[in-house]
């Protein structure tokens, strides 16, 4: 490939600083684990070290985000745009929440070792790569790095068969879907002759390849692979089983980190690389979004286990995010980022509450275990109520969750090709979701305590409580004054390759201001 790519000009150290810090930090944690005595104290220290690493990485990302992109970043395999940094921020937020939760959870579940935090950091490296890459090869490797780490994290609890079972299912189905993904990448490569997304876009629009069967087939298989990763229907069936079986903190990690990263990469491929073929993939994305919203919400309805319910709910949220993708507008991109933030805060918070309430016993996450929580632990119950309402997209009491939905709807309806039908499906599906989210609230606030289901030990929410508090605070504050988050989301634009749009391209430009395109710093 001779695409004028100047290796010397690319300052890898700058471009990859957060990822480098993360992976090196992970190795540091591993080293610490190798020399530290086995026990709870070391586990805590290893986690604290990992948290520090994540924070440093976040700081590096923040620093980079405020810099102008280095030379060569416009076409290279690594993106240097707002979308990347925004996704990184959301992912690292999830990573931090996971690490804090895991620190206290692992002590209770006797998962003491330094490897789990290290694996979380490795997975985070993969996620960051995933959202920062503009090359199919790197995206593939990012996915694999992330997935392999998460497979292991899922099966981490060796005392529970369900943990191993979840890991096996996740692994087998995950690698199966990877086969499709990879095949898709191969066909895309075959059709366009490149793995670099901007180049791919150019080739497609220059060669008028949007209807090339090879490209279509490639896109279809790519859809399958990504639909699996983001848990879109009908590729979602692994989700509830895996979410239920995995140790709670890592379930949370999957729900927020994996989903956000996979989504960001999917969005980047579709909007940046395959943008010119919008007309070709729009229909499939539409179907996927609709099916996912309906299936996720309807299936969540009868779940008694809250972890499982949240799994289905995460499927539904994937559907909402897909709606934003189908708009193929910069508002849609901003909506994805904004939504991901709100979703991450609420989901991490909800899992934190679950991990405290269950007292380290994985089975104790059913609605019956939450019954009467408002009497025994009112603050926790209130926080959980906020998270549920936020996931429901309810204003004020649910905080930012509402604006997330609002933003997606705005993007869908204001898009150059308005997605009004999807918007209606979205809100109707949300109505269904109200039933199960409220079911949690009803259990906590309107049912008596089930004495037979008292947790073995009462976990004092220490740092996890802090995470919950921060999540609630952020959600509520951004729920009445979302402007900072909106501005942040708007700034996180994704270069969208122009191409054959469904409707008039002139209106497209009005929505996507040129100054947000990264090409001209």
């Amino acid at each position, binding site marked *: 490939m001779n695409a004028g790519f100047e290796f010397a000009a690319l300052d890898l150290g700058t471009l990859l600083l957060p990822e480098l810090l993360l992976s090196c930090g992970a190795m540091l944690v591993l080293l610490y684990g190798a020399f530290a005595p086995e026990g709870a104290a070391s586990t805590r220290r290893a986690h604290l070290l990992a948290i520090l690493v994540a924070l440093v990485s976040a700081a590096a990302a923040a620093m980079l985000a405020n810099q102008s992109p280095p030379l060569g970043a416009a076409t290279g395999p690594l993106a240097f745009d707002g979308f990347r940094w925004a996704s990184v921020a959301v992912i690292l937020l999830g990573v931090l929440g996971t690490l804090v939760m895991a620190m206290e959870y692992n002590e209770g579940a*006797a998962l003491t070792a330094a490897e789990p935090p290290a694996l979380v950091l490795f997975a985070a490296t993969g996620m960051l790569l995933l959202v920062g890459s503009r090359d199919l090869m790197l995206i593939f490797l990012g996915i694999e*790095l992330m997935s392999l780490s998460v497979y292991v994290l899922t099966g*981490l609890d060796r005392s529970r068969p369900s943990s191993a079972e979840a890991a096996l299912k996740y692994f087998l189905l995950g690698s199966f879907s990877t086969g499709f993904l990879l095949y898709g990448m191969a066909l895309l490569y075959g059709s366009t002759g490149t793995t670099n997304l901007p180049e791919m876009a150019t080739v497609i629009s220059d060669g008028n390849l949007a209807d090339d069967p090879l490209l279509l087939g490639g896109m279809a298989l790519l859809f399958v692979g990504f639909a699996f990763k983001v848990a879109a229907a009908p590729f979602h069936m692994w989700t509830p089983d895996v979410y239920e079986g995995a140790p709670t903190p890592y379930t949370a990690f999957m729900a927020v980190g994996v989903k956000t990263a996979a989504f960001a990469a999917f969005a980047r491929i579709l909007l940046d690389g395959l943008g010119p073929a919008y007309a070709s993939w729009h229909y499939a994305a539409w179907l996927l979004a609709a099916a996912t919203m309906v299936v996720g919400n309807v299936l969540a309805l009868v779940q008694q286990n809250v972890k499982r319910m949240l799994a289905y709910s995460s499927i539904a949220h994937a559907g909402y995010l897909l709606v934003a993708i189908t708009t193929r507008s910069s508002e849609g991109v901003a909506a994805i980022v904004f939504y991901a933030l709100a979703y991450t805060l609420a989901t991490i918070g909800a899992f934190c509450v679950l991990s405290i309430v269950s007292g380290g016993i994985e089975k104790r996450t059913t609605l019956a275990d939450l019954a009467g929580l408002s009497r025994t632990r009112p603050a926790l119950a209130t926080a959980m109520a906020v998270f549920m309402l936020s996931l429901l997209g309810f204003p004020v009491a649910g905080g930012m969750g509402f604006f997330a939905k609002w933003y997606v709807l705005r993007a869908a309806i204001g898009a150059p090709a308005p997605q009004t039908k999807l918007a209606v499906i979205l809100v109707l599906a949300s109505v269904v979701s109200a039933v199960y989210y409220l079911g949690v609230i009803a259990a906590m606030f309107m049912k008596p305590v089930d004495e037979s289901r008292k947790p073995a030990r009462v976990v004092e929410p220490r740092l996890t409580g802090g995470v919950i508090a921060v999540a609630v605070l952020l959600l509520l504050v951004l729920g009445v004054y979302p402007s900072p988050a909106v501005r942040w989301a708007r700034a996180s634009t994704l270069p969208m390759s122009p191409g054959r749009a469904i409707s008039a391209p002139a209106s497209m430009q009005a929505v996507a201001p040129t100054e947000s395109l990264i090409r001209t710093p």
Partner: protein
Amino acid sequence: MGTFYTVHFWLFSAMAIIAALAMVTRRNPVAAALWLVNVMFALAALYVMLGANFLGAVQVLVYAGAIMVVFVFVVMLLNLGENDVKERRSMGAALAASIIAGLLAAELLYVIRSQPLSSAPLLPVDEDALAPMANSLFTEHLVAFEVTSVLLLVAVVGAVVLAKRSQFANEARS
């Protein structure tokens, strides 16, 4: 592209397909693994015929040699017999699966067939197969290359974490 080439291409292709079919139908995991090795050899030959000599070698060394050995090793370790797994032997299910697989194959073939690939000019096969690849690997795909190192580290750590016996886990169980 002489006849010799064509004959051999189809020979190895047929071998790969037959071996693959054999693999998916064998009850015994060891037999399946060996049939898979067979597929990989056939594919290695096809790689070479397509000008990827180096990858052909790697295929044999890494894939057939290392990965498949681990497979067989695990099968042995678990001491899995032929009857350990009650395979679904209903004709209906098999038929349905075949239909689905056939449908998928049909779609994939349709997608590929529609492409005028045969008319596209082929790049010349570089005799020195390794140099351009290495060049590409360490410049253009350096980042990816580095990522694979982390990936392998994760694999090692993960395998260790999952396979090692934890005293805490034992305590928890007892």
